[in-house]
């Protein structure tokens, strides 16, 4: 595991947040290309191919990492921000849509987190952003998150972002919670993620909840979002003059339509 940088941070705003990170000299943070809002003089930006966690892996390694990033819907490049000045410098990253930014201490969480793709905002240098492939066909198709999620690995601090208000829940061993598809933001790898048929054909058709729930079974910690971006987008879309109703979220066709994409 690469060396982690310890970073201090502060989150500003309520519904449309940004996180300000304080970098000590020679400390660095990685972020999704395009997420930076402002940085103080002395911080230098460096764009790397792949996810920047392994600096010595060579060309093929970088290419492989970059390919994985394409799968998760990220851009091919990541940006590293290094404080080359003397003294502490601040840099901030903004969330791309209304929602909350959640800090995650990966060290405390057991070194690994799985989150919705596109959820990653920024992290201390050394955190690697990989893919977690959904191994259950049904979950991939109907679970609301698609086949591909992001896997954050390392011992540092990572920031993820999701829509609406975020609910943080701790599941005891064996405790199970049913979640609307598309509302899962992040989970510990110890949590079992599955789907459950809604039960009655009448509810499946008319309840508006789709055909399946996502189920999460503990032990472990999970984060849920109150407003998946796709839901917001579909409301905005259907409210747009001249376009009419957009695609219904969580429907059978929607799941099939975005075969690889899932809900979000």
């Amino acid at each position: 595991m690469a060396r982690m940088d310890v970073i201090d941070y502060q989150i500003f705003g309520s519904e449309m947040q940004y996180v300000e990170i304080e970098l000590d000299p020679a400390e660095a943070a990685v972020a999704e290309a395009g997420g930076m809002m402002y940085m103080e003089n002395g911080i230098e930006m460096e764009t790397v191919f792949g996810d920047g966690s392994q600096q010595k892996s060579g060309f093929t390694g970088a290419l492989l990492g970059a390919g994985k990033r394409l799968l998760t819907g990220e851009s091919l490049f990541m940006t590293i921000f290094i404080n080359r000045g003397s003294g502490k410098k601040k840099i901030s990253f903004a969330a791309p849509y209304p929602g909350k930014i959640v800090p995650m201490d990966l060290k405390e969480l057991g070194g690994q987190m799985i989150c919705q793709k596109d959820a990653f905002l920024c992290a201390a240098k050394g955190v690697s952003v990989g893919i977690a492939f959904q191994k259950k066909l049904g979950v991939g198709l109907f679970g609301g998150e698609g086949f591909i999620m992001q896997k954050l690995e390392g011992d540092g601090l990572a920031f993820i972002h999701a829509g609406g208000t975020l609910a943080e829940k701790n599941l005891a061993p064996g405790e199970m919670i049913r979640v609307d598809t598309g509302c899962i933001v992040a989970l510990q790898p110890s949590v079992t993620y599955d789907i459950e048929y809604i039960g009655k054909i009448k509810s499946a058709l008319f309840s508006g909840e789709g055909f399946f729930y996502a189920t999460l079974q503990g032990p472990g910690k999970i984060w849920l979002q109150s407003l998946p971006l796709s839901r917001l987008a579909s409301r905005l879309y259907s409210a747009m003059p001249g376009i009419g109703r957009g695609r219904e979220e969580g429907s059978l066709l929607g799941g099939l339509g975005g075969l690889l994409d899932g809900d979000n």
Partner: protein
Amino acid sequence: MERFEVLSFGPGIRPHGERTPIRIAPEGVVLRPGEPTEETLPFEALRVTAGGFDHNQIALTWTKGEGIWSLILSDPRAKEIFLTTAPPSLAPQLAQWRKRTSRVQRGMRLGGILLALLLLLPLLLGLALWWKSDVLAEWAVHRISYASEAQFGNLLFEQARLDLTLLPEGETTKMVQEIGNRFAKEAPYPFQWHVAEDPTINAFAIPGGHVVVFTGLIEAADSAEEVAGVLAHEAEHVLQRHSLKGMVHQLGWRVVVALLIGEWGGGSVGEAAAQLQVLKFGRDQESEADLKALALLKKAEIDPKGMITFFSRLSKEEGVPIPLLSTHPPSADRAEAIRAEIKRLGPWKAKPLPYDWNQIKKKLAE
């Protein structure tokens, strides 16, 4: 004895799990080995389930007091040791665990294959077509009736005619029609023979029976028998439905290309007609037309030597490539094959064609 660090969950400890060192011993799972809080969980007290994001972790659950505790084995080495050291009393649960994980794995493999198939389908289709294209084209062509082929040919000819200056009825056209009709006696098509004014040495056939000979070809010929050889050859292209096969072939490719690229290049009749003149027959088709043409010549009692002399003379002329030959097999092989076929068919008595060749040439030169 190997030690692992795993996440354990339970009441009173951090809800997202606490990193706990464990050791898997013959008597059970030892928590925090060597520490003052060391604790041994006998195998009998453990419940084994499959779980985790990948559905392949071993979740061990036990009760202590009122609370339910669990720890998660996700390290492959730890799982292996646990599976091998667990006593037979746990066997049913382990079998259950294996069943669940392997089911997920099987499902994933199946899903992967399905997905790959779905994505590769157009490619596979293309490959199949490339491999079996001739057979497929033949099969499709068989399904087209002679009547509709002739209809289609008329349509194509109407289009092609716009680019051609047809020679008005006269001695030359009469000769071409007369010779041609000798080959068309048993044909399922109403053959039509045309002469077009064009200095290139070429002739082409349209599905359904339209054959066009260029004046350049007649001028280059030394006798009516030589023209007859070419006409028989073109007639065979029609009778063997070579251009139709070529078109079906090409159409099939278009479908595949459209599937692969998602685009359908405009496929109008006009475009098809424009392609007709450049439509290249395969070498096999050319040889087939050659050999079958000889049978036609035999039936019509026309001397086949004209065919050999015409092609071999043309191929000797260096310089400008002659369109009629550019797509044809090497002429030496070709003449050889023709001679062999004549031998096979057995020589036949030929009546000389009743045309004054010099007269016809003179007429053309005017």
